[in-house]
């Protein structure tokens, strides 16, 4: 009797359980997969609506696309490397060198994540731009006719701005990982004769590898898709994939070309994301 009731009840519950997948799935389809599909489709049709696969090959072999791809990847890799190094050093100091106010500083850096990315770029322009404080000061001090510092308007400017903006994304998981490192292990290592550098390499870093991989992949993803910073700095010749898509779609109205590049950009992002999941999964993070 009761058994029958239980058996009878079970399918009903599964039924309602299944039902709940519908709203998110529908929302996802409407807001995410449908536009994605539109873009993918548009990549194979020219702007008058005719199928045009040859255009795909042409774009993929074009100079402007290859340049943008190389720019994107190299800037992203350089910025991520910079974020990893700066983030690691900062996190080590914040977590292991006790100084008054270290928690406040950590929280301050945390709030950085909340700010719009172009804000930093704007600040950089004020500081290092042609008419910025550094150049103005130098020009006046040495009576120079032209601004002497112009790294900002190169790939380096973009990398520097991205490092500044995205380091907190490394810092946060690293600080979390470091807070879990048993201070007893560090002390044990120290008593056994290990100096600070060895302790960092052999005791602290192994515990932080999942955090480094997770933070690093996130940085790669974000910098590959970065738009605001690159646009804002407006460095000559520094065209990345997102900027190229913007230019083709909005400025030149070449929608098919824009969509072809967008598909590549999406594939790159998803590939990086897959890599991140794979690495995180293998490390049990």
């Amino acid at each position, binding site marked *: 009797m009761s058994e029958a009731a239980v058996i009878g009840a079970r399918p009903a519950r599964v039924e309602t359980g299944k039902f709940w997948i519908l709203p998110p799935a529908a929302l996802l389809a409407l807001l995410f997969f449908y536009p994605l599909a539109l873009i993918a489709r548009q990549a194979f049709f020219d702007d008058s609506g005719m199928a045009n696969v040859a255009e795909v090959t042409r774009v993929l072999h074009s100079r402007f696309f290859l340049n943008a791809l190389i720019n994107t990847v190299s800037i992203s890799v350089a910025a991520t490397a910079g974020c990893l190094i700066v983030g690691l050093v900062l996190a080590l100091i914040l977590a292991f060198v006790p100084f008054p106010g270290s928690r406040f500083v950590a929280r301050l850096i945390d709030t950085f994540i909340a700010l719009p990315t172009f804000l930093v770029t704007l600040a950089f322009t004020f500081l290092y731009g042609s008419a910025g404080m550094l150049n103005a000061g130098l020009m006046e001090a040495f009576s120079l006719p032209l601004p002497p510092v112009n790294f900002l308007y190169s790939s380096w400017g973009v990398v520097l701005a991205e490092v500044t903006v995205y380091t907190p994304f490394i810092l946060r998981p690293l600080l979390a990982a470091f807070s879990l490192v*048993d201070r*007893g*292990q560090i*002390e*044990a*290592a*120290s*008593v*056994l*004769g*290990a*100096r600070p550098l*060895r302790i960092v390499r*052999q*005791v602290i870093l*192994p*515990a932080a590898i999942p955090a480094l991989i997770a933070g690093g992949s996130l940085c790669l993803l974000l910098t590959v898709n970065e738009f605001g910073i690159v646009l804002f700095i407006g460095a000559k010749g520094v065209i990345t994939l997102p900027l190229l898509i913007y230019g083709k779609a909005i400025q030149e109205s070449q929608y098919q070309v824009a969509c072809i590049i967008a598909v590549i950009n999406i594939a790159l992002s998803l590939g990086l994301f897959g890599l991140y999941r794979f690495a995180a999964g293998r490390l049990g993070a």
Partner: protein
Amino acid sequence: MSAAAFTGTNVMDIDAAKVRGAGSNVHFDKVSVAYGAHVVLHPLTLDIAPGEILAMIGPSGSGKTTALRAVAGFVRPASGRIRIGATDVTDLPPYERGLGMVVQNYALFPHMRVEDNVAFGLRAQGADRALIAERVRDALGTVGMSAFAKRLPRELSGGQQQRVAIARALAVRPRVLLLDEPLSALDAQIRRNMVEEIAKLHRDLPGLTILYVTHDQTEALTLADKIAIMRDGRVCSHGPTGELYRRPPNRFTAEFLGRANLLPVTVVEAAGGKGFARAALGDTTLASAGRDEKAGDRSLLCIRPQHLSLTDEGGHSNRISGLLREVHWQGELTHLVLDVDGTAVRVSTTRLPIALPEAGTRLPLFFAPADTSLVPEDAGV
């Protein structure tokens, strides 16, 4: 890392330690420690002889860990000096002190195999491969963990992890081994075995100086050559283990180290020469080993529960009586609680009269003067 990783003192001491029996002494010279205005260690002067096991015991928060961490170099003394052997280590960083340390939660490196954990210190000190291999084998053999060299710490039980932690500390041939509650995380059965194994370890390495911090008096009584009892950041007594147990110099020591019955007495006759003092408990006069009490002094007569017997045996010339309050039978031992003139007196005995006495019965208690001592009331407590 090469020989340059050694400091002058380390090279010398590691070589010296190769000769078995060459341990270092540890000397606290008026060492005090404060956190802000909060003094947690009052000026402490204490010497641990080479090859000695000193157990530092005391209640939680009494400053034991602080004293040990001052030796390790993690706590900076506010005043005083710490010497290990001939070296003043007060200003040396931990990694130049040549010590071994084992803590309660093992603190093994989780991503390293057992053998790499044990090799860690030697690698850090730049020892060559052959020596490392030999020492790792030795150290793991000493703690009976040779079969587990390739395991990761998480694949070991708590007791096994603690053995590895001990092997890791021993592999560097430390001048002094610091143990901070090393067995407190283990369950009772394993803890008993480990205490015996640490005792055996010290028999095998008689030159090793050990500072053993614990709140467990059984561990201290079993292992230590000497005991220092800490209370509120001060050493309230310090001496050879047996002596401290038999003749506790104050009430706190008597009660912290083993169980003690303390009967309030008035000294009637001082202990002259080698004889016993005589003290009055109510109308009863008792003979007791005394110190320097004078007739008329108020004092406490200390008698351990296992030294009280219900029957008159040879030499048990002291006799008191009390009302039986509680009886706890625990297999090997039976614990009785009696009321003797308002003082609760515990008796632990292996032998009982045929019939278990009932609560409310008045029972006589016999004990030998040699098993007693007079303990002064703690001043200002």
